[in-house]
């Protein structure tokens, strides 16, 4: 059995409209974020991964299972979709219980799993209310609990933090982290790039149905040659340091921070820049910190995709 989620040359067309094209991915355990603007193919990729739509070309295997084998696939996969519709007339508990019963398990087991999932998303008090009366955040949480209820190995979560208040967001992020720490595959799509930074082990960046980058954020940043790396140096005498840097020929652009306690430097060769820094005589300049300023998801997103629809 494979230990990866694998896309091989996968394309999906909705008639003449492109969903995703020639996607090759090999997703390891941990939290993987799918990042891209609306219509970039994030949801299509998730629907393909869970068999809700079939690829026009190519093959997908989720830990060795084919996506047209729901009987086995959904024993290991939980999917929280963006579809905000539920079977009519069900309470939160009935929704989860009915879902679990579809797997053919015993009633008592399903009841126990349903209550546990409800507790995990803090919906115990509202469990016996009709889902139709839930707020947007509560509906999001009950969808998450559906995905989590059967302890899946693969969690596919489409915009899982939408509609949640800050406390609930923090709780959910902790939940995803815990699942990833236990070896789960957590696939998340998100617009909120600073959250992607916080939670992701790796990112898959999509634009117009194409994967434009994948891997961990730092390695993705390292591969972007056309944009020089930005480094923020906090120090007591930034102007003197800037002059030294320019002389060393490793910096192509330097700007002084407005508080006069730092400078932002751009370099095309980060490794040689750091080596040069080590050999430089500082003559009383006290360096407080040196840190990359653009190896976050937001910067990479802007470099690769542009700044459309970026939620900061």
């Amino acid at each position, binding site marked *: 059995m494979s230990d990866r989620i694998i896309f091989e040359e996968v394309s999906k067309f909705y008639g003449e409209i492109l969903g995703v094209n020639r996607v090759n991915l090999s997703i390891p355990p941990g939290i993987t974020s799918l990042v891209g603007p609306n219509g970039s193919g994030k949801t299509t990729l998730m629907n393909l991964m869970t068999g809700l739509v079939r690829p026009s070309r190519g093959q997908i295997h989720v830990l060795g299972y084919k996506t047209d084998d*729901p009987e086995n696939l959904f024993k290991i996969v939980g999917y929280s979709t963006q579809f905000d519709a539920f079977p*009519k007339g069900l309470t939160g508990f009935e929704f989860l219980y009915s879902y679990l019963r*579809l797997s053919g398990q015993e009633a008592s087991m399903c009841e126990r799993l349903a209550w546990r999932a409800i507790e995990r998303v803090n919906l115990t008090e509202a469990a016996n209310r009709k889902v139709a009366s839930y707020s947007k955040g509560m509906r999001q949480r009950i969808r998450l609990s559906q995905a989590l209820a059967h302890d899946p190995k693969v969690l596919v979560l489409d915009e899982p933090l939408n509609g949640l208040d800050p406390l609930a967001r923090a709780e959910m992020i902790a939940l995803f982290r815990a699942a990833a720490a236990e070896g789960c595959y957590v696939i998340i799509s998100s617009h909120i790039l600073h959250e992607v930074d916080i939670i992701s082990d790796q990112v898959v960046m999509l634009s117009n149905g194409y994967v434009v980058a994948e891997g961990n954020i730092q390695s993705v940043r390292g591969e972007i040659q056309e944009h020089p790396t930005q480094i923020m140096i906090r120090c007591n005498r930034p102007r003197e340091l800037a002059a030294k840097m320019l002389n060393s020929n490793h910096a192509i652009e330097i700007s002084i921070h407005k508080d006069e306690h730092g400078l932002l430097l751009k370099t095309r060769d980060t490794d040689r820049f750091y080596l040069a820094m080590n050999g430089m005589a500082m003559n009383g300049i006290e360096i407080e910190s040196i840190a990359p300023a653009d190896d976050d998801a937001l910067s990479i997103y802007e470099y690769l995709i542009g700044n459309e629809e970026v939620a900061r």
Partner: protein
Amino acid sequence: MNRVWWAQIKAVMRLEFKKTLFARRGLWIYVLAALPVALYIAFAVVVGNQQHGAEKLARRSEKALTYRDLTSVKEGMTKQEVLALLGKPPVADHWSEERPTDSGSNVKIEHEDYHYSDGQSDLYVNLADGKVTNLAINSYDDPGRDSIMFAGIFQFFFLRLAVFFGCLGVFMNLFRGEVLDRSLHFYFLAPIRRDVLMAGKFLAGLLATCTIFVTSEILQTCAFLWHFTARQQDLYLYHNHGLEHAGIYIGVTVLACIGYGAFFLVAGMVFRNPIAPAAIALIWESINPFLPNILKQISIIYYLKSLCPVDVPVDPGTPPILALLISNGDPVSAPLAILGILVVSVIALYVSSIRVRRMEVNYTTE
């Protein structure tokens, strides 16, 4: 069958049966199922009133009459012979008519209408110039005649319209309704084979339609028998195959639900608009008598008609095309008819199972 599959089918049925039976958008199906019951209740009330009138008329007769007395009157008898046989009529009407003759003068004809009753049947006698010219007996306790009416309503309204459109409403919505409600993903995200899901949904639809239409059929039989006396009911049910016929009608109703259910299940997956398949099926089922034998067999109504226990007679004056629609010129044996429906249904379910496996959740294109 795999034990888990059966548990999954039961889980799907639990959800779907409740949803189908109490769906607000399915209220019209209950109306369709209730219409023949209402018709028989209305019929029973009207016949009951007429029977009550006949009893009153019988009490007003000069002498107590029997059904044999009423049938002893023949056309051509004189007024005196009628009065000798039946006595003075409790209700009589007299009128005269001026009728032109070939010579251009008018001749006066004296008409008399007599109305007798034995309490169960009414006799209408028309006399012209003292001779019986026309006779009509109307019985209120003729289960044999009424059973033909029942057969007509069963074949031409209940099967062809109520069950047909009821199944359309239920089975086409099993998947199509979920797509419109954007809730199909609930099932597609569960660890259940798509064809097992389809089987569960089909059985739930079948249970719901059978509950509705078999209940209607039982109520129709009760309403149909309501105006008969206990003795007549006993005679009809236990000595004239009434109970057997009622059982066959229920069986035919169940088979109709299976056949139409399977057809509309697959139609709901193939067509986006239910009007197109409904119209095609309705036309196909209607022109069935005119089709060659091989095509006749690809139909539900062909087999259902063959199973109906009472033939609807064709009046001699009926136009040939209508007569062909009413009569079942080329019926098949009951086992073959049942097999035919089941084969047609299995083929439809097989196609459904292929369709459901290829189905995608793509609400935006709907």
